[in-house]
């Protein structure tokens, strides 16, 4: 099996703080891998190591078959990165941003123009092409950012929290683009704080917590650990009194409600499991291998 990304025992410390702790992650070529974790879990650091920005302290990481430390130049020719904050040039227009990056990558003037037009259209930025990026909405910036990443048809694309802070519609658009990229054979590693995002996009998920992979598997496998849906029962004052696992079918909802012995179901809601639920499930299972403090963690909402 060849992996587009092959990480073994990767460790990174900042001072005394172990930010990445012996990570093993493998991503088959052409698949989407999501790294799911709360703020401070080490997601950005992980991407920084894989994209040659930060040197690991120990362990190895190969991207496209090349070691990220020893053969950084080769790695850089195959990847592109969309960072956590859209790294675009605010003073320039969308068109100028794309053309500048295309020229940097060695395309001729004519090629840059053609590629810029293609990407502006693909990301629905053609109307705003001549506007300065400083006037763009968050969603437009993200789209431009991703468009820039695709100028040279990278083999492996890294997306660091690509939809954090976006409205639902922009989020959908971005998801569509990510899926489209996969159909073009691109390998994608993305980070996210949202289980539904990992669920919608990823072939495989690594759950990262304080620098450790605490769970991994397909979305279905992970959700199986939580139960697919959760029934919340609140009393008249809106205080949560029960949380019950269900497969989401009406029959099962009624069954679990009756079985739970709830007397006065004030407000009943059914919701999808969130990152919090996965964390609670995952850490209660692996709790014996961790120190006790890990069971009561703070989870970003």
């Amino acid at each position, binding site marked *: 099996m060849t992996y587009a990304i092959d990480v073994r025992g990767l460790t990174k410390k900042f001072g005394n703080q172990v930010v990445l702790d012996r990570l093993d992650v493998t991503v088959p070529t052409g698949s989407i891998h999501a790294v799911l974790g709360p703020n401070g879990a080490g997601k950005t650091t992980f991407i920084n190591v894989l994209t040659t920005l930060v040197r690991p302290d120990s362990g190895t990481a190969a991207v496209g078959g090349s070691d990220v430390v020893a053969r950084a130049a080769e790695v850089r020719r195959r990847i592109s*990165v969309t*960072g956590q904050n859209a*790294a675009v040039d605010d003073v320039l227009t969308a068109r*100028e941003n794309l053309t500048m990056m295309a*020229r*940097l*990558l060695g395309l001729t003037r004519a090629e840059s123009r053609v590629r810029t037009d293609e990407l502006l259209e693909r990301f629905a930025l053609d109307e705003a092409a001549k506007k300065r990026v400083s006037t763009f909405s968050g969603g437009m910036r993200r789209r431009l950012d991703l468009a820039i990443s695709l100028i040279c048809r990278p083999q492996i694309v890294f997306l660091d929290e690509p939809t954090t802070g976006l409205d639902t519609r922009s989020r959908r658009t971005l998801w569509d683009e990510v899926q489209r990229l996969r159909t*073009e054979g691109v390998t994608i590693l993305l980070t996210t704080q949202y289980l539904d995002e990992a669920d919608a996009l990823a072939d495989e998920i690594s759950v990262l917590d304080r620098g450790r992979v605490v769970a991994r598997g397909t979305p279905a496998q992970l959700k199986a650990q939580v139960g697919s849906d959760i029934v919340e029962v609140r009393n008249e004052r809106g205080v949560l009194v029960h949380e019950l696992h269900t497969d989401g079918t009406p029959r099962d909802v009624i069954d679990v409600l009756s079985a739970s012995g709830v007397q006065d179901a004030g407000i009943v809601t059914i919701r999808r499991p969130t990152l919090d639920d996965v964390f609670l499930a995952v850490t209660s299972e692996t709790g014996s291998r961790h120190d006790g403090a890990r069971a009561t963690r703070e989870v970003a909402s």
Partner: protein
Amino acid sequence: MTTIEMGTRRVPPAGNADLVFIDRSIRHSLRDGEGLLMAILLPVFMMGLFVYVFGGAMSFAGDEGYVSYIVPGIIIMCAGFGASSTATLVAGDLQTGIVDRFRTMPIRGSAVLTGHVVASVLRNLVATTVIIVVGLVAGFRPSADPLGWLGALVIITVYITTITMLFAAIGLVAGSIEAANAYGFVLLFLPYLSSGFVPVDTMPSWLQWVAQYQPITPVIESIRSLLMGGDAGSDALVAMIWCAGILVVAIAWSSVTFTRKAGRR
């Protein structure tokens, strides 16, 4: 569809990234309306201040007149202000994360600094031209031959490049726009403690020592000699040695800092 294959990239010619970044920084300069206005108004304002407000009290300059005396000082002072924006621009690029994006591309990431430095040199040469024109209107009477002008231009350009590089290093070290502004302030004070506006021997003796041996004095002295048709002699040599030394330190400092700051914001 273009003819570029999936994942393949042509190797661009050497210096390609530098040219692209120079183009970028010039666009930035031209779009910064406030900055451009300042680059032109500051020289005019400074000339006005020194010639019409302080000038009346300055009788030491003799036949050549105070205007002719201060033109080099004003040029160097304005170059300091003009170059200081480089610190802000470099810090801004680090802050937005665009530099980290450049670093993940198959280019020499530090070429982004080349763009900032070249644009700063061009902006400041425009400001220098404004100063000379305003000076001529206000009574500046240079007597340099073409070779003298050329010599002055070389020294001015070298000085602008040096101080710009120093501000670029400050911008890298500061890492945030606000800090970059604060650190750069000290450098802007140096021209006042030189022979730019009054002869060194009119200062108290401890200050004379500072003024005599700081790098800006030989730079100003050599420009003044060249513009007034004289021979810059050892001043030019000392000025060039200072600039070369500072330039080497600034470049080394920048490249160390640039590497160290990868992936940090």
